[in-house]
């Protein structure tokens, strides 16, 4: 009798495992926040140009939501916290 050869695999010690799907931060439309204020917040928090911040704001306003940043869970939680500190309604979800 012989046994089938077994492949030894090195354990994955890197931080990103195959189960670590990227996250994205969503800002939702709400009836209180001023459009100009939302543009200001996007520029201030993410360093976006006026053009990009305005485009994202328009998307929030017209489509009800927009993805404003992405990354690891930790990074996205930090972004959500900053958006909450500025009174925006933000949540995070998996990218796919």
């Amino acid at each position, binding site marked *: 009798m012989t046994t089938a050869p077994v492949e030894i695999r090195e354990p994955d010690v890197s931080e990103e495992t195959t189960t670590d799907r990227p996250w994205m931060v969503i800002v939702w439309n709400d*009836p209180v926040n*001023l459009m*100009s204020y939302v543009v200001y917040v996007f520029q201030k928090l993410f360093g976006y140009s006026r053009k990009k911040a305005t485009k994202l704001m328009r998307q929030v306003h017209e489509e009800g939501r927009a993805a404003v940043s992405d990354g690891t869970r930790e990074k996205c939680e930090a972004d959500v*916290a900053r958006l909450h*500190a500025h009174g925006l309604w933000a949540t*995070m979800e998996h990218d796919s």
Partner: protein
Amino acid sequence: MSPRWKRFRRGPDHTLVVSLAPAEMDLLVGLPAELRGVFDAPAGDPGAARLFPRAYLDPTEEEAEAEYEALVQPDLLRQRLDALELVTASFDRAVEAGEWREVALTPDDVGAWLGVLNDTRLVLGTRLDVTEGELTIADDDPNAAAYRIYAWLTSLQGELVEQLLG
């Protein structure tokens, strides 16, 4: 006497000078106490909930949500309380300029004013269940006074943001 239709103007040393009528100043002076009341509100108060929203909507992320809230919300509260202190301190520096009340705001003060104005509008707007678009307020609407305050705070914040956007 020059009319103050622009409530904010650039002052020396990176300050922003705000000019308000006495009645407007009186209204603003009352806001910090109102917000403190919201922060002390019982769990489930919709105005308070709007200021401290969830990070995750996915019901399978309840553990992450609980960790987020435990970690972040005390900081959010602390930042908001600090802003109230800055705003209150700025009122104490108000000077009379003819019929107006003026305050020179540092960049930190401006950030605090922006936060207090926005937080107040969020709470008031949530309580009044405002929708987007123009508000038409009937004189006999029991919420007429609250709507008018909301509309005025909106215009004040709008002017402040315009100054900041440049």
